[in-house]
């Protein structure tokens, strides 16, 4: 019976807590929101809603890059933002619902992060003509109020492929893809082309960590480490990890075995979370999702919004290779030469295998 009384007491306390919490929420209306108008340089009537892909803010990769752009927009443009996350295994209807709720909630600038939203954007955008939409990584939804922000990841991958081949002494380099999807195959295609451009007889050992719909390959350092170790044991001495958070493990393996690694998406040499393995990261293929996000928000804010495809490639500066750490300074001239050739169109980088 004593136990029963304990449970009753706990329930009573909970009920009391509920009441208190209710009071608390009544006395502080509207202070909790995401508005930054108080500290903002100038108030704006743009309200940004951002729908992440699975993983959301904090994935150390793609979504985080978008989050950085959003944070910058929030700080510099003084706009109100709302961030919503996706759940694993959801349907298009649930993605549509997310975008509609943002639009109905008064968010007049909506960003959909990732191609998974293409069906949802295509369906929702026409019903909210006054709202400006942007989708990252997809050209598919076409509407007067949709901007398609796409990246030429293969061009950047070509450059780091060239860097890998130039740095390799064994003539064997590795590619670790997070998940075996067309987007990541694009990275591999560019990388392989870059390697072959420098050393036609070099070999590329390619491995994907998981197969869809298992998307854990983007966030599983242990898998990255195992894959990299296998490659290093087979004679590979430079590994390109196009695997989001899993790259961490690949760099750890490279450090333990005295090999080299190449980062992806962000300038990974400068990421605080990778500080202890940064000396193996010779360069990174930088995909500036943050720039695309910021540019889009700014364009809406400045009334210069343009619908349709906007390609972020080497030419536009949305894709690049990083030089932080000075590990590629000796071959920088060579890499920039390739870069110019790609920009001028002399080299056409394949986007598919």
């Amino acid at each position, binding site marked *: 019976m004593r136990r029963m009384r304990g449970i009753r007491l706990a329930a009573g306390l909970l009920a009391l807590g509920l009441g208190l919490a*209710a009071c608390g929420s009544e006395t502080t209306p509207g202070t909790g929101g995401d508005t930054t108008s108080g500290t903002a340089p100038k108030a704006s009537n743009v309200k940004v809603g951002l729908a992440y892909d699975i993983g959301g803010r904090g994935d150390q990769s793609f979504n985080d890059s978008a989050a950085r752009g959003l944070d910058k927009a929030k700080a510099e443009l003084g706009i109100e933002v709302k961030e*919503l996350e996706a759940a694993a295994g959801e349907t298009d209807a649930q993605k549509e619902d997310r975008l509609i709720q943002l639009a109905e909630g008064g968010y007049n600038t909506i960003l959909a992060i990732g191609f998974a939203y293409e069906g949802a954007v295509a369906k929702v955008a026409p019903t909210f003509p006054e709202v400006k939409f942007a989708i990252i990584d*997809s050209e598919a939804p076409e509407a007067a109020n949709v901007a398609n922000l796409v990246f030429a990841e293969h061009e950047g991958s070509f450059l780091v492929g060239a860097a890998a081949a130039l740095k390799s002494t064994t003539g064997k380099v590795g590619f670790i893809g997070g998940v075996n999807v067309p987007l990541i195959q694009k990275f591999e295609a560019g990388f392989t082309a870059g390697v072959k451009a420098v050393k036609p007889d070099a070999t590329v050992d390619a491995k994907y960590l998981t197969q869809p*719909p298992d998307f854990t390959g983007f966030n599983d350092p242990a898998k990255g480490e195992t894959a990299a170790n296998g490659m290093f044991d087979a004679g590979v001495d430079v590994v390109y990890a196009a695997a989001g958070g899993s790259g961490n493990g690949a760099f750890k393996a490279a450090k333990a075995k005295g090999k080299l690694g190449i980062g992806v998406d962000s300038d990974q040499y400068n990421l605080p979370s990778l500080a202890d393995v940064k000396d193996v990261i010779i360069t990174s293929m930088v995909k500036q999702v943050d720039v695309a996000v910021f540019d889009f928000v700014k364009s809406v804010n400045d009334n210069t919004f343009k619908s349709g495809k906007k390609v972020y490639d080497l030419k536009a500066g949305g894709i690049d290779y990083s030089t932080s750490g000075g590990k590629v300074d000796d071959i920088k001239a060579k890499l920039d030469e390739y870069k110019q050739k790609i920009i001028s169109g002399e080299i056409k980088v394949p986007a598919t295998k």
Partner: protein
Amino acid sequence: MGRFSTRAIVLGLAAPLGALVFSALICAFILMVTDHSPIETVDAMSAAAQRPRTLVNSLNTATTYYLAAVAVAVGFKMKLFNIGVDGQYRLAAMLSATLAGAAFMDSLPSFLRITMTILAAMLVGAAWSGLAALLKVTRGVSEVISTIMLNAIATYLVSYLLNPARLAQNVPGSNNISTRPITEGGRVDGLVVTGSTSKIFALVFLAVAVGFLYWFVLTRTRFGFELKTTGLSESAAVASGVSVKKMVVYSMLISGAVAGLVGMPQLLGASYSYALDFPAGIGFTGIAVALLGRNHPVGMAVAALLWGFLDNTANSLDVAGVPREIVLIMQGVIVLSVVVAYELIRRYRVRAEQHEVGRALGRTKTLEEVSS
């Protein structure tokens, strides 16, 4: 046992309702600890419940969850744990989508196309679970292990086949990749609801039919009786002339065939092709829904609706500033507490029955009287 006393009904409802209330309290506690208002959360949920779109989406989600739950429950009734529903439905959806989207299907009458698609899905699902059944009856491999492994194999098989060089094509201008889209005649039109952009899956009726068949076969046929008997006691089943091996194969095949249906409402009612973003993981949700609904056709329907509703309120919670993860916590706590609650109720019931027997037989003897 056929009597319907109020007490039996109360006891039957006590476990799920108690678990629900308990998990609501836990969630309220977690929300308060993390500085969110439970009242606002309830408010956002009830606002969502008044939005036609959320309700339609909930019903649609529940439809697929229900089919998955029935697939799992068929196994459960035999004490077979089919964890492979996930792989079975994904492989079935992928292959039947390929068939449904194939060019030669365009000229066939709509009814035939849809029937063929659904039958193909059932066949693939049954074949995939049949492998596990075969391993179990011939080699004694536990179906828990083999179905988990078959899930992984299905994943690899699907991604091997979902390739432009094989059964799929690149979606133009996109990083997605899908089977050839099913043209107009092969689709199952949904029911339009005013105020909602989503339509109700017409295949919700398929789920209802499956639920009815499940009930009918289990309670009204000899096969169902043998199935339950084998589940309750193998030796009793053998003694009464039931071949356990045969029952294992049958129930796994049925379970797999129902699993094959899981992807159909989404495929024929909304996606029209199997692509990289086809919903995955429904098979595992099915296990939770079957547990919550106690393998009962109506219980599972209620559980599936609850699950679907919770899933679809997540967006509203997110908009209201409440972390959507609270939905996952709530679902997890519900399943755990429901399992505990059923056990508590079962013990209470046993004790109550003993009391009743005692009372019917007269005064219970004291310890002294018994030992003397």
